[in-house]
């Protein structure tokens, strides 16, 4: 009964059970962290703004994104996924979200960044309602942990407006 194999089995089972409990505690310890991220987005230029042949409005713009997301990182953070979405309201839909840019931040050292970029993904409206439209630029992030619960949150920056005329 109490053989080499029996003892090895009992030890491994108990060790793995404890490891699972440790991982759960690690995930819980993430709640002790209260992040205070900051971000700023400037729209430097509307490169062009036109109506596509089949009627949808499309914008190309250049943004200046500054963000400090270092406080999102804990000892249980594998990486952080961030994306900038343009959010606006139309008569048809109360919330339209168009992803303009995204990135994966692999480590805390890269979480305080500054980038000047044109929109990575096309900013196309379902329809032709973008002229003179007020919109928000929202920085969303998803914190991907090494183990346990994922966290997601966002920062809304408002007060942007598209031009009245195509160009």
């Amino acid at each position, binding site marked *: 009964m109490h053989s*080499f194999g029996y003892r090895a089995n009992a030890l491994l089972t108990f060790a793995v059970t404890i490891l699972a409990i440790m991982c759960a505690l*690690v995930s819980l310890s993430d709640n002790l962290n209260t992040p205070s991220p900051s971000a700023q987005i400037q729209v430097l230029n509307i490169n062009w703004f036109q109506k596509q042949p089949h009627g949808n409005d499309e914008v190309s713009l250049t943004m200046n994104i500054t963000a400090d997301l270092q406080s999102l990182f804990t000892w249980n953070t594998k990486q952080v996924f961030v994306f900038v979405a343009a959010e606006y309201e139309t008569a048809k839909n109360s919330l339209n979200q168009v992803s303009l840019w995204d990135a994966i931040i692999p480590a805390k050292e890269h979480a305080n960044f500054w980038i000047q970029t044109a929109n990575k993904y096309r900013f196309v409206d379902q329809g032709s309602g973008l002229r003179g439209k007020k919109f928000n630029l929202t920085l969303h992030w998803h914190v991907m942990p090494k183990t346990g619960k994922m966290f997601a949150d966002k920062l809304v920056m408002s007060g942007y407006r598209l031009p009245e005329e195509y160009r």
Partner: protein
Amino acid sequence: MDWQGQKLAEQLMQIMLLAFAVVAFATGYVLGSFQMMVLVYAGGVLLTSLITIPNWPWFNRHPLKWLDPLEAEKHPKPQQPTVSGSKKKSGKK
């Protein structure tokens, strides 16, 4: 491994694993390194295996004392009445 040794091995295994888990978690949290936690715990599991799995001499300090053979011979087993024919009959039933 004798009875006392089994109890000792079992308790030692549980206490050591729990202790290493606490140490590993504390180390990882203080250093802010998940990897460090896993490494410390893995080391602890390895050490615990080496100490509690093999049949070390310190698990054999309380050997069972069996009765002397002479003592057993003084009280012989009652002899079973052996009938050669009955075995075959019962086997066929």
